[in-house]
Every structure is written in structure tokens, then in C-alpha cells.
């Protein structure tokens, strides 16, 4: 995903319909729920995480091991990702790589991520839970182009992470909140994709989810402690 193609038109054409995806998609309905869905749709093409998808089938059982059980675990997982994103945009904004309207967009997205952090913290509190600590992060901020590529990668991953987790949320209100964030991450992802010469819809008509393990492996390089 980090190698952008610089040809939006071509990219738009490339993502032509995958005739298999539709049946594969809904074929799992009524089956074994989130696990089947993730298996059915989890053929992630991202080369940077080769191997990590092999564990997808085990996901529902140990999904919350790192962040605690149930909805609180999922909210803390989301909180960790939002902390990471908010941090990223804050560092990018300070990097001096962007100016004017570009900088304004970076700040606007970063502001959204911070609002997500705040909302998720409030949700943790409403569950009487303990919030995950903000991770210390470090991102490669070499030049504007690579930073935008990284931003696109992070947003696409974030959208996939929410999609992967949505089916495991039990509380209706928390699910509604997660969905309202999920589609905003998708908007960020699509916009950054377009701006970096990629298709706004790289998965075609149906977005692919990512499981927690895959997502955490992807963001690990940016977490210092």
C-alpha cells in the first residue's frame, strides 16, 4: 500500500468488479458470524503483513487478550489506534512539511482523530473501565509525499480495523458510535488515497476487514513503547 501508483484514473479502472466477491461476501450470512466473515473476506493483499493472516481463524477467542474482555477491550483497542492517529497528525503538523491548505487538512483530520480519542475515553469511563495508555509513537517524517502515503496507509488500516471489530461489539450504543467513527476513517482513507494517486475504493464494492492481530502487527513499527 505504501507504493502509490500516481495514476488515479488507471487505479479507478483497475479496481473493476470482482465477480467472486459478492457471493463470497454474503455466503457467510447465518453461519459462524464474525470469524467466518473475516476468513471469507480476509485475503488481505498487503505484502507487508504476510503470514499474519494465518491466525485469523483464531481471532474471536483471543481477540481481547491484550485489551481486556468484551466491549471494553474493543473500545480500548480502538482508543489505542486513535491515539496513534492523533499523534501521527500532530507530529506531521509540526514537521513543517505541509503549509497552507495542506496543513489545514492535516490539522482537520488530526482534530477528528482527537475527537475520536475523547469519545472513546468517555466510553471507557461509561463502562467503568480503565483506559488503555497512550502509546509513545514515532513515525518516519521524511518528505511530504511519503508522509501522505503513510497517512493513507494508516487510515485504510483504521477503517479496516473498525470494520473487523464491529461485529464483536455487544452494546448497541457503542456499536453506533463505532460505526459513526468507522465511516469517517473511511472518508479520510478515500481522500488520502485520491490525493496520493490511489483508488478511493481499493477493495472494490466491499471493503475488507482486518483483525486485531493484523492491525497491531502493522502499527507495531510506529510504537516506541
Amino acid at each position, binding site marked *: 500500500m505504501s507504493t502509490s501508483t*500516481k495514476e488515479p484514473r488507471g487505479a479507478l479502472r483497475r479496481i*473493476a468488479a470482482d465477480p467472486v466477491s459478492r457471493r463470497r*461476501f454474503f455466503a457467510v450470512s447465518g453461519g459462524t458470524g464474525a470469524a467466518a466473515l473475516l476468513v471469507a473476506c480476509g485475503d488481505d493483499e498487503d505484502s507487508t503483513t504476510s503470514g499474519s493472516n494465518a491466525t485469523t481463524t483464531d481471532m474471536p477467542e483471543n481477540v481481547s487478550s491484550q485489551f481486556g474482555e468484551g466491549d471494553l477491550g474493543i473500545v480500548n483497542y480502538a482508543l489505542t489506534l486513535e491515539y496513534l492517529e492523533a499523534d501521527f497528525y500532530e507530529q506531521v503538523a509540526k514537521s513543517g512539511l505541509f503549509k497552507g491548505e495542506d496543513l489545514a487538512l492535516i490539522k*482537520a483530520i488530526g482534530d477528528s482523530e482527537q*475527537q475520536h480519542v475523547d469519545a472513546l475515553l468517555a466510553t471507557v469511563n461509561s463502562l467503568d473501565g480503565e483506559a488503555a495508555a497512550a502509546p509513545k509513537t514515532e513515525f518516519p517524517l521524511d518528505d511530504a509525499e511519503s508522509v501522505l502515503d503513510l497517512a493513507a496507509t494508516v487510515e485504510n488500516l483504521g477503517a479496516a480495523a473498525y470494520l473487523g471489530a464491529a461485529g464483536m461489539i455487544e452494546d448497541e450504543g457503542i456499536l453506533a458510535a463505532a*460505526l459513526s467513527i468507522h465511516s469517517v476513517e473511511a*472518508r479520510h482513507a478515500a481522500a488520502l488515497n485520491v490525493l496520493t494517486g490511489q483508488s478511493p475504493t481499493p*477493495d472494490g*464494492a466491499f471493503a475488507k476487514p482486518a483483525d486485531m492481530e493484523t492491525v497491531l502487527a502493522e502499527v507495531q513499527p510506529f510504537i516506541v513503547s
Partner: protein
Amino acid sequence: MAEQTMKNPQLAAIDIEEMSRGSMIMKGALAAGALYGAMAAGPLVKRAFAQGSDNGDVEILNFALTLEYLEAAFYEQALAEVPNLSGEASDLAKEIQGHEQEHVDALTAAIEDLGGKPVKAPGVDFGKAFADEDAFLELAQTFEDTGVSAYNGAGPLITDKAILGSAGAIVQVEARHAAAIRLLRGESPAPEAFDMELSMDEVLKAVQPFVKQ
């Protein structure tokens, strides 16, 4: 757009100004309805949604199917009718139209898998929305934003987790469409930190003007 990766002039075109949460999409949808369509209520739509109501998930899927039918028809007609559509808008419209048709097919299959009866495609009338590219893209944005809010509102009501996952995979693509169209129009791709949700009734009201008897 192809050579602008470094400088990102599109970024400069984006309107960052804050809009009050929630009010915008619904107002936009209703205003678009008043502008482009007849204001007559559409009993056909209500009838469509009443089918298969013994299964909540089927009802929601039929609701989604009707929206996807509307969207697919909208882009299909736009591609045929909007004069002098730019290459960029045309490429995007084709891509989106293909996705909406795939959503129609997938939702139809899912409803059948659940033993439900898929609603028929509604008759549509988009009024003057295809007069020019600006009018088309403006209504396209409204449709996509409304679609996002429709799925977000219906999502928590879905019982079957696999269906929820599938609906999530669709709403993410609707959100991506919305952002792409907004970029093309020089609008903020994500005007709010949280996309609002709309109830099925609210969505119905918003799309009724485009549904023909």
C-alpha cells in the same frame, strides 16, 4: 490529477470550514428533494419496506436494497444524460455505479438466503439533477452522505453478526464514494468527526421525492 501528488492542489481546494454536526446531511437531502423532485409522498416506497417484516434483518436489507437500487439507477442515468460530463466525473460515476450494482446483487442474494423476498427496483425520477455536472455531483454527494447515515443508523438494529459485517463493508464503500465526490466538488471529504445516523423513516422521507409511482 495524475501529476499532482507532490503539491496536492486538491488539498487547497478542500473546504475545511466546520459545519454543525448532523444538520447538514439531512438538510441537504431534504433540500435536494425539494429542488429536484416532486414533493409527493411515495406509498410505493413504504410498501416496499413493509415486506418481509417478520424478519428484522430482512426488512433492513430490503431498506438497503431500495437505496442501492436508487443509487445504481441514479449513476446509470447520469452517465447517459449529463451533458459534457468530464472524464474525471465520468470515471468516478462509472466506478461507483458498478459498486452500487454489486451492492444490489449482494443484498438481493442475502435476502434470498434468509428466506425473504427482495423488493423490486423502484421507479425513479431525478428531476433536473442531470442538467449539468454540478447538479449531478451535488445530488450524488447528498445520496452518498445519506447512504452512509442510513447504514450507520440501521447497523445497530441488525441481529445477524455476519449481515452486520457485510453491511459494514458496504457502508465503508459508501463513505469512500462520498469522500471522493466531495473531493471532486472541492468540499471537505469528512466534514465531521462522527458521521451522523439517520433512522429508516428519515431516510425514506429524504428519498421519496425521487421515487416514482
